């Protein structure tokens, strides 16, 4: 099963404050540990919402609002995707997040990722075959190891 560990935004990430050398070093060690355990599938950091935008849809019509967005609690600053055997194993990894981050004051959110088999019977064999083809093409384009056997 796959999980997404979400690093919530805070005032520093929204201010575009770059991580210190010691934090980058600690994150690197954490990521290496996850790669060595064969669980890390992806991980990215996001630039402040000031560089982003929101697209609201009403009646299917999009309206664009440029960032920044004031509510840091509603924002995410980064994520890591892991593949593990249980929710407990995922939580154990979250607990090992480097304490150097945000001087040890932060919030992480753990969320389970949908797999094709979770979608039920409305995910018809035809749709499933299409999904498999799409994922194979994504892997081919990005050479991302996410889905590699």
């Amino acid at each position, binding site marked *: 099963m796959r999980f997404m560990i979400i690093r919530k935004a805070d005032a520093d990430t929204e201010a575009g404050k770059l991580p210190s050398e010691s934090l980058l070093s600690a994150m690197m060690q954490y990521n290496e540990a996850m790669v060595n355990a064969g669980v890390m599938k992806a991980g990215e*950091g996001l630039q402040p919402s000031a560089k*982003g*935008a929101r697209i609201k849809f009403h009646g299917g019509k*999009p309206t664009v609002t440029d960032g920044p967005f004031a509510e840091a609690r509603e924002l995410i600053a980064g994520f890591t995707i892991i593949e593990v055997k249980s929710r407990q194993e995922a939580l154990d990894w979250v607990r090992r997040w480097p304490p150097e981050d945000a001087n040890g*004051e932060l*919030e992480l959110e753990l969320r389970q990722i949908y797999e094709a088999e979770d979608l039920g019977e409305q995910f018809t064999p035809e749709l499933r075959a299409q999904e498999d083809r799409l994922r194979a093409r*994504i892997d081919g384009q*990005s050479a991302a190891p996410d889905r590699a056997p």
Partner: protein
Amino acid sequence: MKFMMIIKADASSEAGVMPDEKLLLAMGRYNQSLIDAGVLLAAEGLHPSSRGARVHVADGKRTVVDGPFAETRELIAGFWMIQVKSREEAIEWARRVPFEVGGSTTAGGTGQIEVRQVFDAADFAPALEHSTEGRALLDAEQAFRDRTNT
């Protein structure tokens, strides 16, 4: 430039309502167009927060709180990762997300996508390039990214 298109959670995504066939087909066509344009790197949907947890870290001490979490506005329901040439191109793709289909998880044409730029290893250079140790870390970061392709 890499961008993340975040689909924000709403009442139905938090209730675990699954997309119907019509919406799945529309999303399939949208994803196909992203792939045909050569921009799609990844796309995932998240289970409701009721199956998740939060880990609060304070003074370096960890406290686990199980979901669900009430503030739907603070939650995300899924994302696309795309590689494009500009912020405008990323926003143009976000405008094309098929919300007009309605269906169970897009609340009948209403919803929100957040577009956020993703850090490259090079973005950390200003913090690191002043020292030998920093430059070594920067190289290690790039090598790590090359290895994990993230």
